[in-house]
């Protein structure tokens, strides 16, 4: 195939190559002056104080002004809108002074007829041989199209911010439905709770409650649905209401968890069954009002902590308890204890023990929590929640998951 007058190697034939400079030079302006005057951008030279020393034809046409009215008489900032002048004085000029150049700053020119022309300004300081600044050279690019495009971006950004706020409000509202607005007071007992939100625009998966049952007994639970967001919220909501409903018909903690397990299994989607970890407990006041008899059932949840009146503290393991919702016939084990005056029972989610505490990313861990509890005991429900909340705060950025706390205590000396 013949390719025009090109040689076989793609280069121009030699006589054309000789012609090229002449042809090009005929097309191009010879005159440097013309290059300057009619460049496709505005050119401007000013003295260091901003007084206009030289200006090109393009910029004069944009402004609708005459050279003799500007050169020697006006300052660069006189060409700007007042807002642009303020920006020039507070940002552009100081930075240019300090850096010797400034690049692509958005300003608005004001033409003689009052119209405005958005431009992008770039300036450099020309220095003499001794390094002394002599004058400022500025190029101005017509930025009308770009400005329209930027306005669209800005509008889109503002809209996105607005949507994000709406989403946060929605998430916060939804989250509030998943935890009780306040802990109901239990006669003869102090109770306190805290929820740390790791993110303001996602619904976390931790949940807890403390609620009355028939015969003066109370139910409570602390749980954690894996994952976050809308899917987790659906499971959290299901778990919370199932636990409360199941406890009404049969409050035995093992049965309550078994019922939740069945409900979650029925809910299972094809790919991923919803599951959670839970501790469910039943509180029954002791007959002579000394404290409470507690039965706990655990389903894969971090063990509860007992902080005793005598200053000791220990985990209350519910060994063998399986995650709730994974297999149809999950087994849950129970543990019992007596909560006596001065004792505090603390439940929490794994955001606490899995918080990162060091630069190397090590986790806070069960051991550290046990030591912390031992240094804290004896305490009370508000005392324990307050201290652990302060501990959570001390983790700062290391606390990256939602964390819930629920504590119950029998006031000391209660007779």
């Amino acid at each position, binding site marked *: 195939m013949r390719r025009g007058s090109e040689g076989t190697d793609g280069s121009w034939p030699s006589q054309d190559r000789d012609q090229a400079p002449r042809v090009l030079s005929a097309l191009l302006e010879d005159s440097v002056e013309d290059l300057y005057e009619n460049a496709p951008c505005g050119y401007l030279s000013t003295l260091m104080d901003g007084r206009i020393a030289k200006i090109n034809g393009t910029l004069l046409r944009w402004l609708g002004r005459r050279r003799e009215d500007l050169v020697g008489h006006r300052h660069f900032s006189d060409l700007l809108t007042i807002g642009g002048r303020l920006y020039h004085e507070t940002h552009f000029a100081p930075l240019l002074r300090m850096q010797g150049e400034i690049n692509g*700053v958005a300003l608005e020119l004001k033409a003689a007829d009052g119209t405005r022309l958005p431009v992008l300004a770039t300036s450099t300081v020309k220095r003499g041989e001794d390094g002394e600044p002599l004058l400022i050279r500025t190029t101005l690019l017509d930025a009308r199209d770009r400005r329209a495009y930027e306005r669209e971006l800005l509008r889109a950004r503002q809209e996105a911010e607005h949507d994000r706020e709406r989403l946060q409000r929605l998430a916060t509202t939804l989250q509030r439905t998943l935890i009780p607005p306040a802990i109901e007071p239990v006669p003869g007992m102090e109770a306190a709770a805290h929820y740390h939100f790791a993110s303001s625009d996602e619904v976390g998966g931790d949940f807890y409650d403390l609620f009355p049952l028939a015969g003066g007994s109370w139910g409570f639970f602390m749980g954690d649905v894996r994952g976050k967001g809308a899917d987790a919220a659906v499971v959290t909501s299901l778990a919370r209401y199932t636990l409360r409903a199941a406890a009404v018909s049969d409050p035995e903690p093992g049965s309550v968890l078994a019922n939740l397990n069945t409900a979650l299994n029925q809910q299972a989607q094809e790919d991923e069954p919803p599951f959670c970890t839970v501790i469910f407990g039943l509180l029954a006041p002791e007959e002579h009002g000394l404290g409470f008899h507690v039965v706990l059932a655990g389903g894969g949840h971090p063990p509860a902590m007992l902080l005793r009146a005598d200053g000791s503290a220990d985990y209350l393991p519910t060994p063998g308890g399986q995650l709730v919702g994974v297999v149809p016939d999950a087994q849950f084990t129970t543990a019992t204890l007596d909560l006596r005056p001065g004792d505090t029972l603390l439940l929490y989610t794994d955001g606490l023990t899995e918080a990162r505490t060091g630069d190397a990313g090590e986790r806070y861990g069960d051991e550290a929590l046990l030591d912390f509890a031992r240094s804290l005991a004896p305490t009370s429900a508000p005392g324990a929640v307050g201290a652990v909340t302060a501990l959570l705060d001390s983790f700062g950025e290391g606390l990256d998951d939602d964390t819930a706390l629920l504590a119950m205590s029998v006031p000391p000396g209660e007779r």
Partner: protein
Amino acid sequence: MDVRKRNRVRVTGRESGPVVMLAHGFGCDQNLWRLVAPALAEHFRVVLFDHVGAGRSDPSAWSPERYSTLDGYAQDVIGICRELGLGPVTFVGHSVSSMIGVLAAVEEPALFEKLILLTPSPSYIDDGDYRGGFSEQDIDELLESLDSNYLGWSATMAPVIMGNPDRPELGEELTNSFCRTDPEMARVFARTTFLSDNRADLAEVTVPTLVAESAHDTIAPREVGAFVHAQIRGSELVTLDSRGHCPQLSAPEETAEAIIAFVQGS
């Protein structure tokens, strides 16, 4: 609250010298003083800092409520003076910081030896006979200018900052920090700066005050300088032979001389 970290406070200069505190205005940070600070450091203990929301101040200290009045900034200045415990200082406030200094010195005169108000304006908006130089619409235009530079701000400003062939020692560290401001914070500071009216506070000033205006300043024109001078009893007025709102950049020697003379004068 560690105020040194909050305001990125730096103390340099002669240890036994009188204390001079330099406060930057809207648009930049403590770097704005770099052409005058070395001359001042020969004579004085020089305290530099960034207002919260500017430069390398602690972003976690920012609160749009606290910093939407000049009093929030004035409280920070008082806090820095107390924390450093250097005794009464001469406070040099540029532009809006001159009014921040006025508010601080009215509230806690014992902390201030002298005030130097560099290109001050107690109110930028025209009001009756008072000519501040601007209308509210003009200020809205400035906010638009800020927004126009909003998108490019972080990307455009950083490379610009690099070009400093005659001061290679500025190097890498300044590349990403020089006079950079979060646009949201700049917006709040702009509104606070240009919409505040502190005319009534001037008469309350009791510490010796120097008003240092720029001969050609569109932001704080000379009639505003004269107004400030007239309102502060016993104040001195000096007109620096400079153009623009930042004489510490356009006429650094003269600005330093004026500061030195006033601090050393009795």
